[in-house]
C-alpha cells in the first residue's frame, strides 16, 4: 500500500540554505586548515631556510629570531621542516580520501545492486577489514619501494572496504524505494539507474566518511614515517621529524612536540569539520 508522501521520507538533503551559523570551534577548525593548506602550497614564501639545509655548527639550538623553533640534530631549521612537512601530510590525506571514495563508490554500487557479486565482494572486504590497517600498510611499504605513491596505496587499501560497506548499505535501502522501481519499469538502463538514481543517496554520507578518511590517512602516514616505514627521510614529514627528534627528546622535547602539535591541530580540525558536515548533511547519522 502506498503511504502519504510526507511520512517516512528522509529529511530534505539540500540543507545549505538553512545552515545555522557554524559554532566557534568549527570556524576555528576551518581557519586552521586553510592556514595549513596555505602554508603547504606556498611553503617557500613562509620560510627562509631550505628544509634540508644542513648547518652542523648550529645543531640543537633553541628558538631564535633566525630559527623560530630552533634547529634539529643536523642543524636544520625545525620550523621550515614542519612547514614543508605539511605538504606530504595534506597530499596523502586528500589523495587517499579522493581515491578511496573513487574506488569504493563504484564497488559499493555494484555490490549493493547485483546480488551475486555482493556475496563475493563482501567476503573479500571482510577479509581486508580483518587485517589491521597499519600492519597491512607496513607490509606493503616493506615489500616495495618507499615512495609517496606506495605509501598512499598502502594507506588506501584498508580504507576502501569502509567506503564499499557504506555505499552498499545505502544502495540496499534505496533500491527498495518506489522511484527505483518506477525507473526499472520505465526501462532505465542499469548504468543510468546506478549513476542517476542510486548514487545520489550515497553522496552525503560519503562526504562525511571522506573527511574522516582524510584525517585517518594523515595519522597513518605520520605513524608510518615515525616507524621508518614511510616515504624516505630525505623528504621532511611530520612523522619522520618526530622520529628523528625522539633521539634527543629528553634534551629538547620541542623537536618532537612542535611537529606533534602541527599534526594534532591538523587532525583535530579535519575531524571537527567532518562532525560539522555530518550534522549539517544528515543529523541522524552517528559517528562510526
Amino acid at each position, binding site marked *: 500500500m502506498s503511504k502519504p508522501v510526507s511520512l517516512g521520507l528522509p529529511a530534505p538533503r539540500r540543507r545549505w540554505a538553512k545552515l545555522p551559523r557554524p559554532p566557534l570551534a568549527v570556524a576555528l577548525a576551518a581557519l586552521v586548515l586553510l592556514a595549513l593548506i596555505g602554508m603547504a602550497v606556498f611553503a617557500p614564501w613562509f620560510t627562509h631556510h631550505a628544509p634540508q639545509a644542513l648547518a652542523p655548527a648550529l645543531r640543537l639550538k633553541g628558538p631564535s629570531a633566525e630559527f623560530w623553533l630552533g634547529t634539529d640534530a643536523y642543524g636544520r631549521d625545525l620550523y621550515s621542516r614542519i612547514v614543508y612537512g605539511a605538504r606530504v601530510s595534506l597530499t596523502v590525506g586528500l589523495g587517499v580520501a579522493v581515491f578511496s571514495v573513487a574506488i569504493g563508490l563504484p564497488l559499493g554500487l555494484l555490490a549493493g545492486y547485483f546480488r551475486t557479486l555482493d556475496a563475493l565482494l563482501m567476503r573479500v572486504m571482510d577479509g581486508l577489514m580483518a587485517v589491521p590497517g597499519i*600492519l597491512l600498510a607496513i607490509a606493503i611499504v*616493506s615489500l616495495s619501494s618507499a615512495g609517496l605513491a606506495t605509501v598512499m596505496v598502502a594507506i588506501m587499501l584498508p580504507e576502501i572496504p569502509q567506503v564499499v560497506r557504506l555505499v552498499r548499505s545505502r544502495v540496499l535501502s534505496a533500491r527498495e524505494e518506489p522511484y527505483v522501481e518506477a525507473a526499472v519499469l520505465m526501462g532505465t538502463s542499469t548504468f543510468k539507474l546506478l549513476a542517476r538514481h542510486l548514487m545520489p543517496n550515497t553522496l552525503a554520507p560519503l562526504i562525511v566518511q571522506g573527511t574522516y578518511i582524510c584525517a585517518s590517512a594523515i*595519522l597513518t602516514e*605520520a605513524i608510518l614515517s615515525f616507524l621508518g616505514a614511510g616515504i624516505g627521510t630525505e623528504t621532511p614529514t611530520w612523522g619522520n621529524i618526530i622520529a628523528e627528534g625522539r633521539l634527543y627528546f629528553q634534551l629538547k*622535547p620541542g623537536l618532537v612536540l612542535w611537529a606533534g602539535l602541527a599534526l*594534532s591541530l591538523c*587532525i583535530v580540525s579535519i575531524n*571537527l569539520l567532518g562532525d560539522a558536515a555530518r550534522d549539517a548533511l544528515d543529523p541522524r547519522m552517528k559517528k562510526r
Partner: protein
Amino acid sequence: MFAYFVRRVLAAIPVMLVVALFVFLLLRLSPGDPAAIIGGDMASPEQLAAIRQNLGLDRPLHVQFFVWLWQLLHGDFSTSLMAHTGVLSMIGQRLEPTLSLALVATALTVLVAVPLGVLAAWRRGSWLDHTVMSVSVLGFSVPVFVIGYGLTTLFALQLHWLPVQGFKSIFDGVGPFAYRIALPALTLASAHIALVARMTRASLLDVLGEDYIRTARAKGLGELAVLFRHALRNAWVPILTVIGSGFALMISGVVVTESVFNIPGLGRLIVDAVLARDYPVIQGMILLTSGVYVLINLLIDMSYAISDPRIRY
C-alpha cells in the same frame, strides 16, 4: 543459540581464507623474487634454491597457495631472517609485554570511559558534558605518539613521578610493573577512552528516555541504581562493540606505544622486522593479529547473545 554459534564460527573461516590469500598474493605479486624476499640479502644461491624448492615456485600459483596454507595449518610459519628462529616462537617470546600493555589499557579504558560517559549523559548539556565531549575529540584526534611524548614530558621529565621508558614483567613484582606500565597504558588507552566515553554517552542517552527508566525513578530507586543497573545494562551492547572493535585501533597503538616507551613486545618486533625487511615475521604477525581480530569479533557476537536475552537468532 548453539546453532548460531556454530554458524558464526563457520562464517569466520572464509574471512581468514581471504586474509591468507591476501598475504600470499602480497608476496607473490610484489616486484622481485619471493625467494629473495624471504631469504633476505644475505642468502647464498644454495639457500635461495632451497627456499624456491620449499615454496614450490615452479608449480602453478594455486598449488603454491595450498601448499603454503597446509604448512601454516601445521604451524610452520617459516623462519625469521633476523633471529634465525621460528616466527611463532619469536612471537611467543614477545607476547607478554604486549599482552600486559593491552590488558592494562583495556581495563583503564573501561574504568575511566564508562563512568565518564554515564556522567556526561546523566548531566547532558552541563559543563561536565561539554568538557567530556570536547576532551574526547582531542583524545582520538591527537596521535598516540604525541600523547605519549606529551605525557612523558609532563610526568617523567618535569614532575619526575614516573620513568621515561622501560618495562618490567609483572612476575618481578606488581609495584615495579605498575610503575613502568602506567604511562604506556594511559597513552595506549587515550584514544580508546575517548571513543568508548562518547559511545557510552550516546548509547545511554538513547535509553534514558525510555519508560522503564521513569518507572525505576518513580519507584524511588537511587540515581546510581537507575544509571548503572537499569540504563547501562540496556545500553551495553553498542558499548561492548566499540570496546571490541577498538582492538584494531589498539594494534596500531601498540606498535607506536612500544616504540615510544621502548617496550620489547610485538609492536617492537614488527618495527624491527620492517627495518630489517624480515618478511616472514611481518607475514606471521599479520596472520596472527587478523586471526585474533576475527576471534575477538566472534566472542563479542557471542557475548551479545549471552548478555542480552532480547537478541535471538
